[in-house]
């Protein structure tokens, strides 16, 4: 199905499908809800205003994920520069209380995982976030990041290796 990004109907369709993914990407790169909301808003405004024709909804989705990822990484870079001068007041993300059944991991582990993701080097972080939180395959990640599939494979592996060692250090029972 062809998507024209400035047509309201197409826009709404893409928005409904893609917003959660894009929000997750922004959040797991920045770990700040307000910043992520701004980033997603900016990405969708660009999407609407550029008036681009996409061959499919997936093409539109990859475009949006790429823009969001770039915006989010820029925010993180800027933030880390600012942090060098001013002590950052860390915004602890609000953790909703989950019912025991559907919770895959407890909130403490979740916080530690998120802190570990935050510490990953930029290139590995981008790949891991797209793999674990945007549910994309290697080919899709490769096309979004404009790198080769084998490069994605290597980065996923490296990112997981670092994640494992960081979570081990935190003495998390990963099993």
């Amino acid at each position: 199905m062809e998507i024209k990004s400035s047509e309201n109907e197409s826009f709404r369709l893409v928005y409904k499908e893609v917003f959660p993914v894009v929000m997750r990407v922004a959040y797991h790169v920045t770990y700040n809800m307000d910043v992520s909301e701004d980033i997603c808003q900016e990405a969708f405004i660009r999407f609407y205003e550029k008036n681009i024709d996409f061959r499919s909804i997936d093409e539109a989705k990859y475009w949006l994920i790429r823009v969001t990822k770039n915006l989010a990484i820029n925010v993180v870079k800027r933030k880390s520069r600012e942090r060098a001068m001013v002590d950052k007041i860390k915004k602890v993300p609000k953790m909703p209380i989950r019912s025991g059944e559907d919770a895959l991991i407890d909130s403490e582990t979740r916080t530690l995982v998120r802190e570990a993701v935050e510490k990953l080097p930029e290139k590995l972080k981008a790949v891991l976030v797209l793999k674990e939180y945007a549910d994309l395959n290697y080919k899709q990640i490769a096309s979004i990041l404009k790198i080769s599939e084998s490069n994605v494979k290597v980065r996923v592996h490296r990112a997981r290796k670092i994640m494992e060692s960081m979570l081990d250090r935190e003495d998390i029972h990963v099993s």
Partner: protein
Amino acid sequence: MCLDDQILNTYLDGELTEPWRTQVEEHLTYCVACKTRFEQLRSLHITVSGARLDDAEIAPHADKVLQFIEKNYMEKKLKVGFFQRDFRMKTPTLLAVAAAFVFVLVGAFMVNPGVQSQSGELIPRVPSSTEGTLVQVRATEGLAAAQVLENFPLEEILKYLDSRGYEVDLRLKTIVPISDEGETTP
């Protein structure tokens, strides 16, 4: 030979192609060490992806951003000015409009051919010589002189033009009205 982490991760993500996939599957059935390592990597994957942002946490932000875009972008686009409007029409309609325009334009000239004959009356007629000899026309004497426009008083010309149905607007250009203020100021 046992499997390394990268192959296991690729297999875990379902990205390993044949024939390696079958080989890995087979290996995992009997190699306890690799099977244990694979399970560790799988639980790491579950733990990491389990830390994802919930749909419930996303929903209010999704609504908020959509409302913002609807209000500031979608609604504004609807208010298009007259000249920005799209005047596209289908070819038969366009041809019909063009034909009607040409018809009206040509018809106007055909119905009203009197423009030239009217202007002819205003130009003073000089009697043409029937014998073919040269006739000198002078403004000061004879019939020609009598018919020169400047021999008529302005009122008569106006009356004549009025009777022919012309509306004449006379204006004096060079005379500047004397202002009262200019007189009183020293």
